[in-house]
C-alpha cells in the first residue's frame, strides 16, 4: 500500500491516456496536469467550478470517444447535476476521476463538507455503471487504466489523497480562447 498525493494521481491519469480528451477542473488539477505534460488533449477549466463533468459529457456525447474528466471533491459537490446528467446516458464513454483530498486546496485548505457523503454511491444511484474508490497509488493507476481502456459507460474512480503534495505549479496563463481553439483542433484531428 502506498498513499498518494494529487500530483501522483494526475500523473497516473496522464500515464493511462494518450490522445483521449481530458477536462481538468479548476484549481490545482489544471496546474498540475499542465506542469506534468501540457498536451493539446487537455482542457484546463480555470473557472466555472462544478462544470468539468458537464463539459466532458458534451465532448463524449458529441465525439463518441472516451473522455476523461479530472474532478475534485469540492468541485463535484459544487454541482452534482453532472452526475445526474452522465448517469442518464448509459452508453456515454465518460471516465470521471475524482481527486478527493477532503480540502478546498487552492483556497486555503478548508475542509470539504463531504465527510458523510459517499460520492461513489451517488454516482451509482445516478446511473453510473461502476464506481471505485481507493487510497492506494498502484490500485488507482490500475483502476484508471481499466476505466480508460474499456470505457463504454459512465464510470467513477475516486482517488482518496492522503499524502502531501510538492509545491503547486504556477497558474494557467495565456489566452483562454486560444487554449480552447487548441483543444478544438485536437478533437477535430482525433474525432
Amino acid at each position, binding site marked *: 500500500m502506498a498513499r498518494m498525493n494529487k500530483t501522483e494521481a494526475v500523473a497516473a491519469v496522464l500515464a493511462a491516456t494518450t490522445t483521449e480528451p481530458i477536462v481538468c477542473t479548476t484549481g490545482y488539477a489544471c496546474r498540475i496536469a499542465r506542469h506534468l505534460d501540457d498536451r493539446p488533449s487537455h482542457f484546463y477549466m480555470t473557472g466555472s*467550478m462544478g462544470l468539468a463533468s458537464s463539459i466532458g459529457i458534451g465532448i463524449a456525447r458529441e465525439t463518441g470517444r472516451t473522455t476523461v474528466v479530472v474532478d475534485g471533491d469540492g468541485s463535484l459537490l459544487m454541482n452534482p447535476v453532472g452526475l445526474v446528467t452522465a448517469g442518464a446516458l448509459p452508453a456515454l464513454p465518460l471516465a470521471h476521476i475524482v481527486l478527493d483530498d477532503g480540502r478546498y486546496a487552492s483556497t486555503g485548505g478548508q475542509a470539504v463538507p463531504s465527510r458523510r457523503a459517499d460520492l461513489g454511491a451517488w454516482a451509482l444511484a445516478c446511473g453510473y455503471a461502476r464506481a471505485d474508490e481507493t487510497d492506494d497509488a498502484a490500485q488507482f493507476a490500475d483502476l484508471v487504466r481499466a476505466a480508460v481502456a474499456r470505457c463504454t459507460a459512465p464510470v467513477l474512480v475516486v482517488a482518496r489523497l492522503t499524502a502531501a503534495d510538492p509545491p503547486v505549479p504556477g497558474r494557467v496563463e495565456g489566452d483562454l480562447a486560444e487554449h480552447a481553439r487548441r483543444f478544438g483542433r485536437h478533437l477535430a484531428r482525433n474525432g
Partner: protein
Amino acid sequence: MTTATVRTPLAERLAADLGTDFGPFFGTPCGILAPLYRTLEEQADLLTVAREDNAVGVAAGAALAGRAPVVLMQNSGLAQSVNALASLVVPYAIPMLLVVSLRGVDPDPTPENTVMGRLTEPLLDGLGIESTTLSDPVDLDRARHLVHVERRAAALLVPPTAFGWRA
C-alpha cells in the same frame, strides 16, 4: 398532472430554421418556450439537463467538438448560468446560441420573475453576449453571424407571448 403543450406556427418555423445549421440542442424547460421545446424534442436532438448552467457546460463540450449548440432556458436559468457564461463561455470564446425566455416582462406580472425580467438584457450586455429579440418572420442572420462566423455566444430573447403563453 401535466399541462398540454400546443404547437404554434412561429415555434415550428423557429425550430425548422434553427435545425438547418444549429445543434445539438440542450435545455431546461420553461413554460414560455414549451411549444418550441416540444417541436425540438420531436424533430431534433434535444437533451434535457436538470440545471441551466450544466446545460451550458454540456453545450460548451459540444461546441469544443466543433458543433454550434443551442441552449434553451428561462431567464431565471440565465441567472443560474452567469458564472458558466462569465468564466467559461465568454473568456474561452465558445460559440453557442442561448434561447432565453423573458419571464417577468409584460404581460407576465409574477413578482418572483419581475427582477430577473428587468435584469436579463443588462446582464447579457454586461457579459458581452449580444442579444436579439425573436421576431416574426424569424430572422436569425445576426445570431448566425455571431455563432458561425465570429464563433462566439449569442442570445435570442423570447417574449412571453411569442408562442402564446398566458399569465
